[in-house]
């Protein structure tokens, strides 16, 4: 859920940059096939609601999770003319690459989990287990394929919502923030106009 913060950051950035014009710009954003995103999220909910446990216990949820990526990629294809959506697509592709290379879930190391769970120990994070209420599987660094694309970045406490995230997550967040600033063409039009706020 921490990635939803990208919307808040993007909205604040837009309000700072364009003030009263920000909401009008956001209202002109056109997204085709938005239902694909909602359906993709719905398919992921069973995995996001599954508590920690053996990977085999979430086999069905994992299959739905993987299927949801087809919908996300279809959404990106439908909106390919939008550069920020292409950026989001790149982030999704990075995450998907790491997920597929590691058997269908996003890898995260026990060390990273200790970082974001204050007071915990490595023993609490058994290798190969599904990390509860997430899309992650616990894997050691040396056993992770495409390690650079896995959840290696951490926001530990005192950040109020400690979390680990991937390079793909960062790219997705950047895409959402840029998308909320409006299209370059519209920006140019506004810059040329006399009433720019």
């Amino acid at each position, binding site marked *: 859920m921490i990635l939803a913060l*990208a*919307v808040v950051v993007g909205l604040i950035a837009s309000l700072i940059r364009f003030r009263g014009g920000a909401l009008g710009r956001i209202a002109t954003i056109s997204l085709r096939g938005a239902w694909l*995103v909602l359906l993709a999220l719905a398919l992921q909910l069973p995995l996001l609601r599954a508590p920690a446990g053996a990977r085999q216990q979430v086999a069905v949820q994992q299959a739905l999770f993987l299927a949801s990526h087809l919908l996300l990629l279809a959404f990106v294809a439908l909106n390919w003319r939008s550069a920020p959506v292409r950026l989001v697509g790149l982030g999704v592709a990075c995450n998907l690459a790491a997920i597929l290379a590691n058997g269908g879930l*996003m890898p995260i190391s026990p060390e990273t989990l200790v970082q974001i769970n204050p007071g915990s120990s490595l023993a609490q994070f058994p290798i190969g287990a599904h990390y509860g209420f*997430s899309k992650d599987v616990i894997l050691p660094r040396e056993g992770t394929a495409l390690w650079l694309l896995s*959840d290696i970045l951490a926001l530990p406490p005192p950040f109020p919502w*400690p979390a680990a995230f991937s390079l793909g*997550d960062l790219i997705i967040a950047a895409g959402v923030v840029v998308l909320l600033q409006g299209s370059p063409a519209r920006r140019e039009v506004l810059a040329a106009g006399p009433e720019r706020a």
Partner: protein
Amino acid sequence: MKTLNYLWNRYATPTNQKIVYILLILAALAVAGGAPGASGGVGG
């Protein structure tokens, strides 16, 4: 109820509804596309 009706008529304009819709879709896109691991996923 009267206050709610007033607020709805005052603020739930088609433009504002579209803005909320876009923000919700983008939030869903970020959540569905990303794969972060949050704290509290194991035990307690």
